[in-house]
């Protein structure tokens, strides 16, 4: 390191990296970097949203039948859990900005807990699909896609697939493929988010963040909100559309 730089750096914040001029530039770069990353995430999920749109249009009855078989209660609870986690995340960022270390740690713990709750509920849902042999193709060895179909007029059995007129088991499999691809990819992002926040929590506990330096908290928050928003789109698309056709 050249001597010319040390004078400039002596007065600056210890978290300032050597290639930035000042904290403001470093903060801007970090925030813009996360925004650009979120754009790539948007495109990543975009491919699956396109496939969903295409096949929902092509097979409306099949998709509605499959949608109706999803557990609305668990999905709705999960939506509330995620919205709450976004609130606690926003409060965590605020606490970091005002330098309230106790609240920062509390809010991060709450956010992580809510995230884990979401993942737990998601695991229950996946297990239900496993029990009903709804996992497409031969992804799970020894448990190929083979759902039981409910006959018209027979008593309700929630383990059986209720096919609307014109729907086929084969096209329902397509829905489940997309369902697992989208929610699986979303869950993976949640897991990464929980990991990220755990690191932030560790450094918050060490007292690294305060009014002058908090952009890691901020940009982790951006990521967390993005993952939440993806779910806000997934929930109506996967669970709600076609519910009114349930009792046809």
């Amino acid at each position, binding site marked *: *390191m050249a001597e*010319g730089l040390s004078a400039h750096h002596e007065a600056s914040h210890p978290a300032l990296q*050597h*290639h930035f001029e000042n904290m403001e*530039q470093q903060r801007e770069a970090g925030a*813009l970097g996360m925004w650009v990353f979120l754009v790539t995430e948007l*495109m990543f999920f*975009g491919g699956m949203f396109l496939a969903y749109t295409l096949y929902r249009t092509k097979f409306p009855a099949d998709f509605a039948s499959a949608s109706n078989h999803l557990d609305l209660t668990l999905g709705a609870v999960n939506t509330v859990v995620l919205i709450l986690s976004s609130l606690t995340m926003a409060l965590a960022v605020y606490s970091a900005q005002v330098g309230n270390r106790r609240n920062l740690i509390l809010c991060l713990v709450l956010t992580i807990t809510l995230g884990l709750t979401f993942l737990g509920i998601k695991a229950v849902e996946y297990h239900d699909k496993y029990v009903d042999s709804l996992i497409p193709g031969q992804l799970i060895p020894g448990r190929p896609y083979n759902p039981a179909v409910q006959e018209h007029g027979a008593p309700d059995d929630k383990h059986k697939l209720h096919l609307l007129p014109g729907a086929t088991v084969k096209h329902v*499999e397509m829905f489940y493929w997309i369902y697992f*691809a989208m929610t699986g990819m979303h869950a993976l992002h949640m897991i990464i988010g929980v990991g990220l926040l755990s690191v932030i929590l560790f450094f918050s506990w060490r007292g690294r963040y305060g009014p002058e330096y908090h952009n890691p908290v901020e940009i982790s928050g951006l990521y967390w909100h993005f993952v939440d928003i993806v779910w806000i789109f997934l929930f109506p698309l996967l669970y709600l559309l076609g519910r009114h056709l349930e009792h046809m």
Partner: protein
Amino acid sequence: MKAFETFETPAAARVNYINAQYGLKSWLLTKDHKRIALLYLGSISFFFMVGGVYAMLIRLELLTPQGDLLSSATYNKVFTQHGIIMIFFFLIPSIPATLGNFLVPMMIGAKDLAFPRINLLSWYIYLLGGIITIYALLAGGVDTGWTFYVPYSTTFSNSYVIAAGLGIFISGFSSILTGLNFIVTIHTMRAPGMTWFRLPLFIWSHYATSLVMILGTPVVAITILLLAFERLSHVGIFDPANGGDPVLFQHLFWFYSHPAVYIMVLPSMGVVSELIANFSRKNIFGYRFVAFSSLAIAVFGFLVWGHHLFVASQSVYAGMIFSFLSFAVAIPSAIKVFNWTATLYKGSISYDTPMLYALGFIGLFTVGGMTGLFLASLAIDVHVSDTYFIVAHFHYIMVGGALFGYLGGLHYWWPKISGRMYPEGWGRFSALVIFVGFNLTFLPQFVAGYLGMPRRYHAYPPEFQVFNVLSSAGASILGFGLLIPAIYLVWSMRYGKHAEANPWHLPGLEWRTASPPPTENFLTTPVVTWEAYEFAPPEEMQVVGRMKDEKLEAPVS
């Protein structure tokens, strides 16, 4: 002669980025964008040689009409692997990850890219993707064509599709991270006085390239991931048995892979803009037009993917729209070509090696672009689809365009990168050999393709042999020509003449620091008070030109 102010320290006992630290660890754990650029340079050169070996196998097989050297199954693997290696592991990272990595911070007066650790991470990700792909090749190879069309790739192919796909998927993230880093760096790290319209055009084209990288690459990533899962689970969204649509794969694939062509050629255009302006010693004609045409190409590039589906059950109306939009891309491309030509007019031109590549680029890119218009026309495309006409067309863009720009840039900035001059005589000689070899390889393919020779077969009717013999002969000249710079550039790292800070006497920021630069690029933060390509008045220019020639002529005997 106008002396350009430099920001360098006294020359004596100077520490630069190469000799600042020694040892393997100092390279493998470096966060210096210049060292990472060299890591990339080494790895893409390796992959270029691997891809080149496959190209030679293809040309040897096609020397005779019979499929005698390689079985049809092996031939399928050879051309697939040639495509995968050259596109994903050489062309896409070539200029951005080496020259871009090295120069983007230097040209805007920054100490490094915004995220040095992410930059290093991108190289490791690239390497991991490359290793997995090499594993796929050694384990048994892939035979789907680099396009991985379903349902062949998901259902019928018995080759290592998942491994190769995984390699491409992973290496895609290195490209995303590079693009992200460039965008943030260009937005936030410019030196005082370096306004957007003072940026060298190399930066503008890298900005446009980065946009394509971050918007397109994630789409191909999810597409390949879905393909891999479909192959694993024997069912999926592209599977017709399920009501799926194989054409959806083509849409998603080309939504990235057409813009990917612009990832390859836009940085090259940036290099050529630098070379044309600097070796004519003139400001570029219509700076803003050239700058914005890069962005226009990036934007239009996302709207034309459907021209790969003219013969794939796409509706005629969609075809017409995609045809029209494909023609529209020609406008910003032509703006560049015309502005480069206008820049040459009354310039004080010197024909150093980089300039030879730049001029070659203009000619070859024009041929590649014009034949692109043939292919964008619905009716003609039906005739030449999947023939050698297409093969010739895209090689004119990818080799004549992207590779020529890369070689030109590599020579031009070699004194800055290595601190040594390359031998000018050998440089000019090899540039000519490469130009001749390239044209001899691919010009006959236009004719063979137009006459109906289909691509991707190892045997062909005997009447096409003359074109193939010419092509194979050209390929050997091209291969020989490419060996020359490989040898003398390595040679010059040790034995080349020491380069001065500004060997070409140019105004750009990267020339105002030492060659090779110190680790932090500039010892004091530069303040930019001049426009890009701001040269001295013409009467002084001529003097500079003569002096430069006297200084730079390398003794070639």
